[in-house]
């Protein structure tokens, strides 16, 4: 006889699934790291340099060194996943199970994946003209 997966009430029987643990830890660590990275980003882009001096040439210069590519890459991944996980939690908390929830969750996953792949693609393959 297969193991039952639900209690009598229909509540799923829990099993050792570390996903939510990792998501929880990730939120805290990425939050702290992002705090410093985002402040660094803000200082460089808006305080040291003015936004009207930032142009294509500026980006070319900046991304000539792998350090800034890696910096921006890490920030992209952390910020996107942090925001994605926050939204996932909100959808999970506020939407009742059903089609509406499935669709919203699907859209969230799809949108986040597109942004992540698109951003990573630019950072990795960027070559100055």
């Amino acid at each position, binding site marked *: 006889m297969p193991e039952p997966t639900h*209690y*009598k*009430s229909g*509540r*799923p*029987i*829990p*099993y*050792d*699934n*570390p*996903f*939510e*643990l990792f*998501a*929880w*830890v990730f939120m805290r660590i990425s939050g702290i790291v992002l705090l410093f990275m985002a402040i660094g980003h803000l200082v460089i882009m808006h305080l040291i340099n003015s936004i009207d001096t930032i142009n294509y040439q500026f980006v070319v210069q900046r991304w000539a060194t792998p350090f800034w590519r890696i910096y921006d890459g890490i920030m992209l991944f952390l910020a996107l996943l942090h925001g994605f996980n926050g939204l996932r939690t909100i959808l*999970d*908390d*506020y939407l*009742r199970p059903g089609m509406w929830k499935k669709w919203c969750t699907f859209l969230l996953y799809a949108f986040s994946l597109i942004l992540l792949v698109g951003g990573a693609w630019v950072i990795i393959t960027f070559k100055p003209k």
Partner: protein
Amino acid sequence: MKVELKIQRYNPETDAQPHFENYSVEAEPTDRVLDALLQVKGLLDGSLTLRKSCAHGICGSDGMRINGRNLLACKVLIRNLQQPIVVEPMKGFKIIKDLVVDMEAFFEKYRSVKPYLIQNEAAPQKERPQSPQERERFDDTTKCILCACCTTACPSFWSDPDYVGPAAIVQAHRFIQDSRDQGGEERLDILGDREGVWRCRTIFNCVEACPRDIDVTAAIGEVKRKLLFRKI
């Protein structure tokens, strides 16, 4: 003094929806809400249905929502409440009648965390010794009386009835932290799932609701920390 009560009534055989009814009884300011409710039941309307047992804040059967907060009716004094005193059943459970709710789902979650001593070794000749420091670690969570005030005050539970809820986590904590118990790993497996402790958003409603003053959110935090540090 005159005490005005506004009680939510629901009889599944005649009512489509719960509704409020007003009652007025004579009581002392130092009487408890339970005294006023029993006056209503005894003198005004015998059909008023509620759970009560010891009436001294120990059995945990008369948890209800009084003036919008989860309280034990036998613990809260009338003089500490604004009138009319609004009395409703606990939120998040199916109402059976008036102030009595169906707590089967609550106890199913309680049973799911294995709230009993698990020991694989043969029982010793005498007792299993424990130092005062080891006892202290779970002292707070031994105070739980399973009244469900915390779980039914929890917004995470309202939005997700599958969430194991603060009361069951408190009960699990009591045994996870017990040096004589060997079932900690099993319980952590159960609580580490998505309907376990990770549903807790540290809203602190449970702490405010607990009539036994258990620091529920701290206990949940300790379970989270245990889960985290056993993975690393």
